[in-house]
């Protein structure tokens, strides 16, 4: 895996895939989220190494990479669960890396964690309410509840069921609904396809696309590169904590090194 990934880095023709930041900057948009030269550590172990990433408003960006490449750490760093040791994170123009997680959530981030992580002994309704934990406006919350039910009618039917008794796919719906309840500007998703049946994976990504079409930016960490790239605007490839490849999703899909390493084609 490692050797293959290294070849990806080497094989990427520098001209073929333009650096994502530069391409989007040309359109003159202000970035929604910006990671500048971010390095993080777990104790003495360096996990991310000078990572630069940009997400523009309304975009859907996916982050690909093998096991232990630092994908989840990137998400945790954006959320503030892991602290940056170097570099800075800007969200809507404001520097957020000194802020606590709840302050960042309040500024418009939401997360669909790895393995869904819904609250097993709370009802569907309570789980959704936890998503809206930092919000005050009762009426807006009810509107969002309606929106979540329109995306996932099954949640509306099972409001009083305990989260832990639902199937994996239903839990994924609940986790996404919970993230939407905070009316975020940016949704961070960690492996939404993990452990789901192929049919469900497609449905989930369809819904992610619907959410994205509504103007909510999506940043999705995914192992399933094919599905993710087919709906994303752009992608980054991470390998042992460094961005080795980035560019438009279509270019990544046809990139030779990508094909060999991640897309399962020979």
């Amino acid at each position: 895996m490692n050797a293959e990934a290294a070849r990806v880095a080497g094989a990427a023709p520098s001209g073929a895939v333009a650096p994502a930041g530069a391409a989007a900057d040309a359109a003159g948009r202000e970035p929604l989220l910006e990671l500048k030269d971010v390095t993080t550590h777990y104790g003495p172990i360096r996990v991310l190494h000078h990572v630069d990433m940009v997400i523009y408003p309304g975009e859907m960006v996916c982050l690909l990479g093998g096991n232990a490449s630092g994908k989840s750490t990137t998400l945790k760093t954006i959320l503030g669960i892991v602290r940056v040791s170097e570099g800075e994170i800007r969200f809507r123009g404001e520097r957020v890396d000194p802020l606590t997680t709840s302050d960042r959530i309040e500024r418009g981030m939401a997360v669909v964690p790895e393995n869904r992580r819904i609250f097993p002994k709370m009802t569907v309704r309570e789980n959704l309410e936890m998503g809206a934990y930092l919000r005050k406006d009762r009426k807006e919350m009810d509107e969002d509840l309606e929106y979540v039910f329109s995306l996932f009618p099954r949640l509306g039917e099972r409001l009083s069921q305990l989260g832990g008794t639902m199937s994996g796919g239903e839990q994924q719906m609940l986790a996404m609904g919970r993230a939407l309840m905070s009316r975020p500007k940016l949704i961070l998703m960690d492996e939404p396809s993990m452990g789901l049946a192929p049919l469900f994976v497609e449905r989930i990504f369809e819904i992610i696309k619907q959410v994205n079409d509504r103007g909510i930016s999506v940043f999705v960490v995914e192992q399933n590169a094919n599905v993710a790239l087919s709906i994303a605007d752009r992608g980054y490839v991470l390998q042992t904590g460094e961005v080795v490849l980035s560019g438009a999703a279509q270019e990544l899909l046809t990139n030779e090194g990508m094909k060999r390493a991640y897309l399962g084609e020979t």
Partner: protein
Amino acid sequence: MSAISSAVKRKVNWVPPAVGLALLGLIVWRMVYLHGLNPNFNASFFAGAFLRSFQLGSLYALIALGYTMVYGIIRLINFAHGEVFMVGAFAAYFLFSTTPMAWPVAIVVALVVTYGFMQILNFWRGRLTDPLVLVGGALAFVAVSVALASTTLGWLAAMVASMFITGVLGVTIDRVAYRPLRGAPRNSMLITAIAVSFFLQNFGILAFSNRQTPFRPPSFWTQPLQVQVAGETLFTSWMIVLVPLVTAVLVVSLTLFVTRTRLGKAMRATAQDAETARMMGVNVDRVIATTFLLGSMLAAAAAVMWGMTFGSINQPAIFGILPGIKAFAAAVIGGIGSLPGAVVGGVLLGFLENFLTALFPRTAEFPGITEYKDTFAFLAMILILLVRPSGIVGEDLSEKV
């Protein structure tokens, strides 16, 4: 596959309960063989033991709730909880006994207590409007004012104020001793808890002097009460009514808090998955502080009623130990981490103790085993751990992970 694993599980699990039950059987047989049952045991004895079971069980339940809440949220067995209980009793003692408060002083005290209460709740409510602030403040104010209006309710004022003081103590303990160790291995916190417990014992000796202290606030509830049951007179006090009543009110309010309010839901979410709760924007440290606040307040309420029930409180060095450790046993019996479990475990322990005392009392010609009632509380805990480690109400531990 599952059939095999369950068969293996059964094979492993049958031995310890069998040994435990055999041990219990042996002890019961020796007991009955040596002493026989209490010859005076009758309907009156039964009624007395039954009522006292609820009384003592309620007190255990209130203390056990503190253990179980803290365990549920940070997986810490808070060994200092018994000492928090002790401080609760002494704080109340000093509030109603050493200062026979004159009216103006009393009003100032009421205002200060209410204001402090509101400030504490104000700190917790953060940037969101929470009716808890007003309700809490108003309740404290009403309780204190009502208490001052009638001297026989002085104990209630003392209890509310002591709950406030002890709650602040609980939050302080968390802030000073446990919060710096949040990321540390669990054993470090456990050892710290024992250290805090020793510290509070010695603080108690310094602050309150190490002697048994009479605890008799002027109150209607501590008046003797005589009831005729099956032709015999049962001597007790009104505390037998008051303790379960106050406990019920507190437990119901706690349940409502945990299931209905925003902070209560955040508390449950944190207990289930702290990291995800943080990702929803929950301030986990604040939630943990709230847990310590509520647990300590319940312990203080139990402490005041404990003193009123027995008429005195023990030396500060030892007062907290036995109630604390027995309430811990109650929490384990009911299923540690579960709120209904703590109540069930507490009441069950109350029944165990009182019926042992009623069936095998100590009289001149009848030695009895009352002296061993503590042993039986812990024996019950060991048996539960052998037979059903998750406790009576607690869920299967394998589900958690």
